[in-house]
C-alpha cells in the first residue's frame, strides 16, 4: 500500500533499498549515514525485508561482501559516507570491472583531517573516474526513489550506481515521503536475473589475469555501457513517472526559458538556489537554475543545449579539486568547450565543510556574477574576512577569536 510518511533522507534511502527488495545488504556505520544501517538492520530483523544483513568490520569489507553477493546473483546494497567511501575505493573499482550492478547510497561528508561530519561533496566526487553511475538527490523523496532508479538502469548495463545525498541537510531532515506500493515498485523493478551467478554447474573464472590483448576491450565495453546508461537513465526516469508517478530526468531546468544567467547546482543546496532564483526574478534579474541530477554519465549534450547562448553561467561547487577548480565547474566547462555559443563559466566554491549555503549566499553569487567581467576557475564564497573572489596569496584569513569568559 502506498503510504505518505514524514521521514529523513536516511530513512528514505533505507526504504529505497527495501522497495528494491535488496537481497544482501552489507554496511558499516558512519555519521551521518548510520541511520540507514540501523533502519535496514531493523527491517531485515523484523522480516519486513527478506534480506541477508552482513555486519562487516569495515567499509572496504562492506563493498567486498556486496561484490561477492552480486557476483553470486543477489541484488546487493550498501550505504556509506566520507571516510568510508574513501576506504572502499579499491572495491568500487572492483564492482565496475566485475560488472556488478550494486547500488550504494553515499551521504556526502567532508574529508578529514580535521574531523568533520558536515556536508561536502568532495568524498563522492573523488570517485568520479571509477565507472559508477552517479546521481544526486535533492529531496527525501529522491533519496528513496533514486535507489530504485539506479537498480533499474544498473541491472541493464551491468554497472554499479551511486546515489549521493548531502549530510544533514538531506540525511537528517524530515520531509513528506511517499513510500510506493510494493507491487508497483516490483512492476518498476523486476527481480534481478543475472547472466552469471557462480553456479557450480558452470565452472568459470571471473576477474582473473587478462593480458594486454584483451584488457582494453574489456574496458571498452565498460565505456560503451556507460554511454548506453545515459539513454537508459532517461528511459527509466520516464518509466518511473508512468509506474510510480514521478518522472526523473538527468537534468532539471528551472525558469530557464528566458534566462540570461544560469546557476548550476547539484544536491540539497539546490532548494535554496531555487528560492534565490525566485527572489532575484522579483528584482528583475533574468536568472534560471540548472540542476545536475546525473553526474555519471554526464549529460553533455543537454548541458550544451540548455546552457548554450546564455550570457553567463555560475557553477556552485560544494567541493574543490585543489590545483584546479570545483568539479562540477570543470565538467560544465569541458562540456561547453569549443561550442560556438558557449557562455563563459564562472566557478563558485561554496559551503565547504558544511558551511551554510543560504538563499542570500546564492543571491550574493548571482550579484557577483552579473558584474564580474572575466570568468574565473574558482571564486571562493564565504571565506572569513574575504569578499567573493579568486585565491589571493598571503591573504589575511580572519582568525577565530577565543571565547571571552565572563567573570
Amino acid at each position, binding site marked *: 500500500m502506498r503510504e505518505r510518511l514524514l521521514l529523513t533522507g536516511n530513512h528514505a534511502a533505507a526504504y529505497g533499498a527495501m522497495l528494491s527488495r535488496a537481497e*544482501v545488504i*552489507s554496511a558499516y556505520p558512519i555519521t551521518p549515514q548510520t541511520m540507514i544501517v540501523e533502519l535496514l538492520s531493523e527491517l531485515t530483523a523484523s522480516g519486513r525485508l527478506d534480506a*541477508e544483513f552482513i555486519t562487516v568490520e569495515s567499509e*572496504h569489507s562492506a563493498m567486498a*561482501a556486496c*561484490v*561477492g553477493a552480486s557476483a553470486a546473483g543477489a541484488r546487493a546494497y550498501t550505504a556509506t559516507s566520507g571516510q568510508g567511501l574513501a576506504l572502499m575505493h579499491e572495491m568500487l573499482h572492483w564492482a565496475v570491472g566485475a560488472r556488478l550492478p550494486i547500488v550504494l547510497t553515499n551521504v556526502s561528508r567532508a574529508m578529514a583531517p580535521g574531523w568533520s561530519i558536515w556536508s561536502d561533496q568532495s568524498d563522492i566526487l573523488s570517485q568520479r573516474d571509477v565507472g559508477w553511475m552517479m546521481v544526486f538527490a535533492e529531496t527525501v523523496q529522491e533519496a528513496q526513489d533514486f535507489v530504485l532508479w539506479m537498480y533499474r538502469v544498473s541491472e541493464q548495463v551491468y554497472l554499479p550506481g551511486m546515489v549521493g545525498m548531502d549530510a544533514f541537510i538531506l540525511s537528517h531532515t524530515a520531509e513528506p515521503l511517499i513510500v510506493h506500493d510494493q507491487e508497483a515498485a516490483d512492476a518498476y523493478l523486476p527481480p534481478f536475473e543475472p547472466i552469471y551467478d557462480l553456479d557450480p554447474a558452470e*565452472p568459470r573464472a571471473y576477474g582473473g*589475469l587478462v593480458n594486454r590483448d*584483451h584488457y582494453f576491450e574489456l574496458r571498452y565495453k565498460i565505456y560503451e555501457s556507460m554511454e548506453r546508461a545515459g539513454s537508459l537513465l532517461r528511459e527509466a526516469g520516464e518509466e518511473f513517472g508512468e509506474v510510480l508517478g514521478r518522472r526523473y530526468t538527468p537534468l532539471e531546468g528551472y525558469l530557464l526559458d528566458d534566462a540570461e544567467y544560469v546557476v548550476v547546482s547539484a544536491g540539497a543546496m539546490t532548494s535554496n538556489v531555487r528560492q534565490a532564483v525566485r527572489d532575484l526574478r522579483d528584482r528583475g534579474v533574468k536568472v534560471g537554475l540548472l540542476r545536475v541530477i546525473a553526474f555519471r554519465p554526464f549529460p553533455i549534450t543537454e548541458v550544451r543545449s540548455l546552457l548554450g547562448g546564455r550570457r553567463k553561467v555560475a557553477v556552485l561547487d560544494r567541493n574543490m579539486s585543489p590545483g584546479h577548480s570545483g568539479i562540477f565547474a570543470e565538467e560544465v566547462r569541458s562540456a561547453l568547450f569549443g561550442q560556438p555559443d558557449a557562455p563563459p563559466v564562472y566557478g563558485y566554491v561554496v559551503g565547504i565543510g558544511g558551511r551554510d549555503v543560504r538563499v542570500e549566499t546564492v543571491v550574493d553569487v548571482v550579484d557577483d556574477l552579473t558584474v564580474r567581467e572575466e570568468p574565473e576557475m574558482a571564486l571562493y564564497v564565504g571565506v572569513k574576512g574575504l569578499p567573493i573572489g579568486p585565491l589571493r596569496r598571503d591573504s589575511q584569513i580572519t582568525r577565530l577569536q577565543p571565547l571571552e569568559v565572563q567573570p
Partner: protein
Amino acid sequence: MRWAVPEAEFMDPGTLGCQGCGGALSMRMVLKEVGDDAAAVLPACCWSIIDGPWPLHSLNIPVLHTAFETAAVVATGIKAAKRHQGKDTTVIAWAGDGGTFDIGLQALSGAAERNEDILYVCYDNEAYMNTGIQRSSATPVGTWTTTTPDERPEPRPKKDIMAIMAAHRIPYAATATSAYPDDLARKVRTAVAARGGMRFLHVLSACPPGWKMPADQAIEAMRRAVLSKVFPLYELRNGRDLTITVWPDREVAIEEYFELQGRFAPLEHEPQTVEQIRSDVAERWQALVDRHERTMALAGA
C-alpha cells in the same frame, strides 16, 4: 603405498604453477574432498596466476578473483547470496599467507568472529611469492627473502595464525600439508562436514623457487617440516579442544629441514638463532602435547 584420498580430480593439468608448486598441489588435494558443489574466491596471490589467464581456467568449480585483502569477506558475500537462494554450495576462500596473516587479517577476523559459513584455506608458502619472494608475517625467523636479504634475514618468529583463529572460537581449525595427504584429506572432510560455521585450514605449501630448492624436494621439505616439529599437524575444535593428528615417527633435527632450502642459508652464520629456534620448537611442541592430553582426558572423562 595407498592413501585414503579420493581419485576424483577437480583441477585440470597444465596450470601456470611452477614445477613442484606446493600451492597448486594443496588446491588439488583440497578439492578432491570438497567436490564440485563449490565456488572459490581467489584474492591476489600466486593462485591468481596459477589458475590461468582469461579465458582459461583450470578448476572445475567457479572462481571469483578478488582484491588481495578480501578473500574471507567476498566468500561471506557469496555465501549470503547462496543462502538467500536456498543453495548449499560450499564457499571456499583460498588465500596465501600474505592474504591471510597480513593484509587480509582484518576481513578474516571479521568473518571468523561472525562465524561465517565458509571454508577458509590458507596455503602458506611463508612469503609473498607472487611479487617475487618478499617477507610476510608468516616468514620464519632467520629466513632470506628479497626484503630480508642475507645481511639482515627475517628477525622475527612466524606469526601464530592458529592461535589467532583459536581466539575467535571458530568451530574447526586445522594445520595440514600435502606431504601427509590422508591427514589433509580427512581434515578437509571434517571441515566440509562442519558446515554452518567458519572453518580454517592452514596448509603449509612448499615453494621451490621461493624456498630456494630443487622442485623435486618440495614434498620432502614439507614432510621434514612436520617431522622436525617445525610445522606440527593438529586440529582445534571451538578454539579449545586440540588434538595432534600426526605424531612424528622418527627424530628429524631442525637442521635437516633447514638444509634442504637455500632460504635458510643465513642461519649457517647464526648458531644462536638456530638454538633459539630449537628451544622454541620444543616448547611449542610440548605445549601442543599438553593440550592434546587435556583434550583426551576431558573426552575420556
